[in-house]
């Protein structure tokens, strides 16, 4: 599941394998604290975040990524590039926060809703926020996302 998730976001098997390695390196250390009731949700979110971070750092390195031909890839890249204060957290603090089930970053919420097609209710359930909380988080992103995904950003 993790590999499939990373591959969908990164669009490249080798990059996805590398990202999956990152996800499980973190899990090796934190597995005792995993919420066993819904592990796939957590794994999915971590994989999403790791992949977004990869896309973002790759963008910094190579400014001409070929995302223009693929609307979904362009949307994912746009979300990856969005400023997110949680991005400044180190990997450890980030994982700590995730395992404590605190609200997920806006970028991950945006991917779940705009890219994966989860409804606001499903997204809220996945990330532990209210529907209004998810809506509020997404409000600030709509203008920019609307340029790429007017349907999704409605």
């Amino acid at each position, binding site marked *: *599941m*993790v*590999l*499939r*998730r*990373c591959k*969908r976001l990164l669009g490249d098997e080798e990059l*996805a*394998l*590398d*990202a*999956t*390695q*990152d*996800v*499980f*390196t973190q899990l*090796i*250390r934190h*597995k005792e604290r*995993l919420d*066993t009731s*819904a*592990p*796939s*949700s957590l*794994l*999915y979110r971590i994989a999403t975040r790791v992949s977004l971070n990869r896309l973002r*750092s790759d963008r*910094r*390195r190579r400014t001409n990524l070929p995302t223009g031909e693929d609307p979904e890839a362009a949307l994912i890249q746009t979300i990856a590039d969005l400023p997110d204060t949680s991005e400044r957290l*180190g*990997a*450890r603090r980030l994982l700590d926060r995730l395992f404590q089930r605190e609200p997920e970053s806006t970028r991950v919420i945006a991917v*779940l809703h705009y890219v*994966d*097609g*989860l*409804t606001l209710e*499903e997204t809220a359930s*996945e990330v532990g926020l209210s529907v209004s909380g998810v809506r509020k988080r997404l409000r600030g992103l709509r203008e920019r996302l609307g340029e790429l995904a007017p349907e999704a950003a409605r």
Partner: protein
Amino acid sequence: MSRRVPDLLVEKLHLGELTPTEAARVRARLEADGELDRLAALETSDRELARRLPPLAVAIQRPAPTGARRWLAPALVFASAGLLLVLAWPLIMSEPSPLDALRAKGGAQLIIHRLGAAGPELMAHGQAARDGDRLQLTARLPAPAHLAILSVDGLGVVTVHQPPTDAPVRELQVESSFVLDAAPHHERFFLFASAAPMAPAMLVEALERIGRSREPDRAPALPDTILVHELRLDKPGPK
């Protein structure tokens, strides 16, 4: 027209993580959309990954998951593809050897080659490397032992290149190369060798501690039954 069933819900159905009510609802949506084959595709994908990467699933599951953590097994099997990059199985298998023998014979080697158009370049301790460099890691021991290769970058992020081997080996090349990212300052690679099996979490935690340390050259704190060999690549900042 209804929205396509999100991948996450299909994955959860596949993993048996939905309540009976949710599972029935998702299955009904898939059926209505004529997309039940997405479930079958996940099963096929899992089998294909397990076939390609069986050793890793075994390596990472140690100790065997039990009770509430049983879920970790399938999750790790699915993820094993990612760790194939850092896994290679023993090239030479033989009887375990005491760590003293390793020390007495000396010369545990962590060999790093930078792969480039002009061919592989052997990297020395302290040599400069940069974001995007592709590296090939090889470990060579004077006597068979359990070994692992990890690194920690200038941001304190730990990477497992080779999880601890289940069996003693004398030489091992990590199957896939590794691309340095943009983390600043350095990437410190560590070869760990031990006569006994090593817990991956212990090694990761040791490197995370030095990653958080303000002492850039601090050595990982580990039992003296583990032989540690380091090779650091420096990453000079932009001029």
